[in-house]
């Protein structure tokens, strides 16, 4: 082997080793700052318990500033602005600018429980004094718990869900948690340290596969389905799904991928066949209407082994058509004009 050849192979091995080394470091914990910074939402996930059934993330700022939202806004701009202004006035929070991202989770429902067993964590800029004034102004209470202020709902005024008090707390500067009182207190106890969902290897691998989208959700379908109480007709016909995940990104239109995991390769094949059948049926029903075909979202069915994936994108043309339809519905027609 000549020296030139040897240098080539050494160089090649160096690139590989260095690349894989950096990737490994990024994978196990990340490197602070810039390119290798922990992905958005990862700090909030420290407050999500290990046994959560579903966890979801939304990049609120990206969604609010997307072209998609601007288009949807046109459908009902007036009431949207009114609602936003009212919320800003009451809480001091401009949803469009002050909230960066939101993480929410749902824990498996325990027997006899009627309250929503979940919590929302919002990262952003909050006007704490204004929020405190709002809570106390509506009869809520401010309690001190392990050095944090917990704002709890007022009893007997609908602030209770299924007999449980609702609460809110700023667990960190710029991080608000909202949910059932006991869960909020658990979040304060946890303090973003240890025993969180990222210690659950099954969740961790799936969550890490979701990064990059404007929003995503990962969950145990079997646990959610038992809570959702799906009709027997559906439960009997679809193969038992164990995990599901969905991720999407928005801008001019929307692009999303939904992934389901089942127990066997055979079940995955059956599920793919069922979905393919539905897709074909839907396409057939739109077959004699070219305008509907043009608006049809691009669907892509895939997956390997025990997974089934459906990717779809909603084009900006479809959104334009919906916007136009919304606008024409709002404009008074001939009958409407006569009545006016």
């Amino acid at each position, binding site marked *: 082997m000549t020296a030139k050849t040897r240098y080539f192979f050494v160089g090649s091995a160096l690139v590989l080793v260095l690349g894989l080394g950096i990737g490994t470091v990024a994978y196990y914990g990340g490197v602070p700052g810039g390119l290798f910074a922990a992905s958005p939402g990862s700090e909030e996930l420290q407050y999500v318990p290990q046994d959560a059934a579903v966890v979801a993330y939304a990049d609120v700022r990206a969604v609010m500033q997307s072209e998609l939202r601007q288009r949807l806004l046109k459908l009902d701009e007036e009431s949207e602005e009114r609602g936003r202004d009212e919320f800003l006035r009451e809480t001091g929070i401009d949803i469009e600018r002050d909230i960066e991202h939101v993480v929410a989770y749902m824990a498996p429902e325990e027997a006899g429980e009627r309250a929503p067993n979940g919590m929302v964590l919002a990262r952003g800029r909050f006007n704490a004094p204004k929020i405190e004034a709002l809570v106390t102004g509506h009869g809520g209470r401010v309690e001190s718990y392990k050095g944090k202020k917990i704002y709890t709902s007022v009893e007997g005024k609908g602030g209770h869900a299924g007999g449980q008090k609702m609460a809110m707390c700023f667990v960190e500067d710029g991080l608000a948690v909202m949910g059932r009182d006991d869960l909020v207190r658990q979040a304060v106890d946890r303090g973003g340290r240890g025993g969180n969902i990222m210690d659950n290897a099954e969740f961790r691998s799936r969550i890490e596969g979701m990064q990059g989208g404007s929003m995503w959700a990962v969950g145990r379908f079997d646990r959610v389905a038992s809570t959702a109480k799906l009709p027997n007709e559906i439960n009997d016909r679809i193969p038992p799904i164990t995990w599901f995940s969905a991720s999407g990104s928005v801008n001019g239109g929307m692009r999303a991928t939904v992934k389901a995991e089942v127990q066997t390769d055979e079940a995955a094949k059956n599920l793919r066949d069922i979905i393919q059948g539905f897709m074909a049926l839907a396409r057939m029903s739109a077959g004699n209407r070219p305008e509907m075909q043009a608006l049809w979202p691009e669907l892509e069915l895939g997956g390997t082994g025990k997974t089934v994936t459906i990717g779809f994108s909603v084009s*900006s043309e479809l959104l334009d058509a919906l916007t136009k339809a919304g606008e024409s519905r709002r404009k008074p027609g001939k009958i409407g004009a006569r009545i006016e």
Partner: protein
Amino acid sequence: MNPSATDPVVSSAASPARTGPSFVAAALRVFDLSLGQMLWSRRTVFLALVVGAPLAVGVLFRVLEAFGIGPRVGQNLVSGTTVFGGMMWLLYLRFIVPVLGVFYGTALVADEVEDKTITYLFVRPVPRSAVLAGKYLAYLATTVCVVLPSVVLLFFLVVPMGKGSLAAAFPDLLVDLGLLALGLAAYGAVFAFIGAWLKYPLVTGLFFAFGWEQIALVLPGYLRKFTVAYYLQALVPHAMPTEGLGSVVQALFREVPSPAASIAYLLGMTVVFVYLAGRMAARREYVLEQ
């Protein structure tokens, strides 16, 4: 093993008392000799172009992103992870891996025949199959050491675009590297056999990679099982991009083997075709055109 005309040519038949090196030692000697020949040959330019093109595209994406023109599907901005997945499918799996397999695999024997140097190799006291095995290993080392680092560089170039996470995409990169190595091994073995068997293997190889494989994959039925791509595509961790009618049809009839079965088939295919290529090289009489 310098193919010099002044070297004494001693065949095992001419001197039964002298025993040649073992199969493994002979294959490693040929491997060592062939490495340099493969790396610094006229094909190097082609290799550099094929592997450099995706990197150039990656750099272009980054420059465009810096100017606020990120990669899009329709009007939607797509993340770097999706772009990387698409490039893996469209550039590496469907083009680079088969094309390297065709050009290098078919040339293992054909080049020696064309250059009329095969005699120098085959008169040495080493098994002919060891010559082929050594050359095949050299092909594998060369292509793997060129393709894999380029994929790693592309990963770092493209994945961070549009909020893509390196950490999240890293496990997929490992799968990609593994399946590319497996793909290069399997395609190389198939084309090494074609190269050892046929007189004009390049045309046949190109037809196999870009004719037969493309057609068989979109046809319903079992024909796809006689392709390498069928097993390779089953291992890809990224979603299949829909860039044409072929992909749509393929997605419609998509029935994929399990990852374990795919790996077993690809490894089996590699071993069987390298063996067949060695056997063909050992038995076939290569006629050098004057």
